[in-house]
């Protein structure tokens, strides 16, 4: 499959990259590893006139401890993050999520952590070849007037399918975004807008540069699980991440995030207050399951290889499993 024509830039500084991004705005795309972008270009679901490669920006590949946070450069390759000593020590859940992405030896050396967060949300009617899509007509995201997955939808319902997204949200990650006006910080949850056409809180002149994850002051228990049809080179049907800290055997902080259900990861906010001060029990796991089902029911639409009913049910099952596994695992 041939790629469409585009101009190519490989800036040597972030300032330069932003200048180019600002000049071309929405018609320029950022190329990090390309494992998602090149496929989308081949399928003609995006048609940029300019591709800006980050290959010369070595400063985007650093992973360092800075104060009370771990700062991961958005351009760091997934294997680089998974093999990093500090990541392994503080956030084994992130290593676990990365191991689920693509295939180990290939996509991990090209794929980047920033690229995984910025993974183009996926839909059964969107991630198809041009030929395939021609038969169905255009959807909201490809210039049409209706969503092919949900007739009355006002915005694109594509699915956030990144493995690291729920994990970074659960770990309260902060993202640094640099643009013409300087740099700003945005929480990982706010980064996902929930709209398929503009899934990320990124201006036309902005680039995601860093992921900052606060180092927990107490040992955390965490768990990531995903359901997918294949164990390699596949996207999740549903995935979930749970992070908790304890104080004297009682839950002190709790966060449960379910993703691959809608255009953004879903944080089950209510549980964050109702679970505090309680001890892990079967009752608690069931509450997590019910809360997840309630939260995704109105969000999931029929646009994945699995049916809507199955995904709603599995959101509950995955929520229960991560909660149980995080709350009963040994703490580190």
């Amino acid at each position, binding site marked *: 499959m*041939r790629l469409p024509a585009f101009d190519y830039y490989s800036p040597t500084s972030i300032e330069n990259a932003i200048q180019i991004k600002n000049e071309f705005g929405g018609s320029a795309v950022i190329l990090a590893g390309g494992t998602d972008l090149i496929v989308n270009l081949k399928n003609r679901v995006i048609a940029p006139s300019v*591709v800006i490669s980050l290959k010369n920006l070595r400063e985007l590949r650093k992973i360092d401890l800075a104060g009370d946070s771990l700062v991961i450069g958005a351009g760091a390759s997934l294997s680089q993050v998974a093999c990093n000593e500090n990541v392994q020590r503080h956030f084994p859940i992130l290593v676990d999520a990365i191991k689920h992405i693509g*295939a180990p030896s290939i996509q991990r050396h090209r794929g980047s952590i920033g690229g995984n967060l910025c993974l183009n949300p996926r839909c059964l009617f969107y991630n198809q070849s041009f030929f395939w899509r021609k038969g169905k007509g255009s959807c909201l995201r490809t210039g049409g007037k209706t969503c092919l997955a949900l007739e009355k939808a006002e915005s694109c319902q594509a699915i956030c399918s990144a493995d690291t997204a729920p994990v970074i949200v659960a770990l309260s990650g902060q993202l640094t975004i640099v643009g013409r006006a300087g740099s700003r910080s945005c929480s990982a949850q706010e980064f996902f807008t929930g709209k398929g056409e503009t899934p990320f809180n990124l201006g036309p002149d902005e680039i995601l540069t860093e992921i900052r994850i606060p180092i927990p002051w107490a040992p955390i228990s965490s768990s990531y699980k995903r359901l997918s049809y294949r164990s390699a080179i596949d996207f999740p049907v549903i995935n979930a991440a749970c992070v908790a800290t304890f104080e004297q055997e009682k839950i002190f902080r709790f966060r449960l995030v379910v993703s691959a259900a809608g255009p953004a990861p879903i944080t089950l906010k209510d549980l964050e207050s109702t679970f505090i001060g309680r001890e892990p029990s079967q009752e608690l796991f069931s509450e997590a399951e019910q809360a997840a089902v309630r939260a995704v029911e109105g969000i999931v639409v029929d646009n994945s290889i699995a049916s809507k009913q199955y995904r709603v049910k599995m959101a509950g099952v995955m929520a229960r499993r991560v909660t149980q596994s995080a709350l009963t695992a040994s703490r580190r």
Partner: protein
Amino acid sequence: MKKLLITMTVNDEQFDLMVRPNETLTETLRERLGLTGVKEGCAEGVCGACAVLMDQHPVRACLTLSMEADGTSITTIEGLASDGKLHHLQESFINHGAVQCGFCTPGMIMVSKALLDEKPSPTDDEIKEALSGNLCRCTGYKKILEAVRSTTQIDPKKGA
């Protein structure tokens, strides 16, 4: 869209090439350099038939722009044999009947080579994990696994 100059080392030989910005590494290697051992299967990163080594790491050539390969060292299946003698992985694939139609074989061997270079005695699970991104529609993988496993007992310094 004007052509751009890249310099890359392919199988220990240096090339200066004028490539289109939208050219993938598969196209450059196959069409400009005639290295047809790089197979284009799915062309969207699923099958692994186009796997080549870029600076010792396996990458999918179909998902890599040639521009991204500027300044790197590429090894393809054609670069494995030396002095008319096949690499021990190639020998092993033949001896174990791990090649049927042969389309996935270059990708399988390149990924296995990267694994063995990094870890000379991998476990079965490690071999399976490393090859999980490569699809074969003929062999059922058992013979491929056996072929790779058998080379782990061979000391690479002594050869096959």
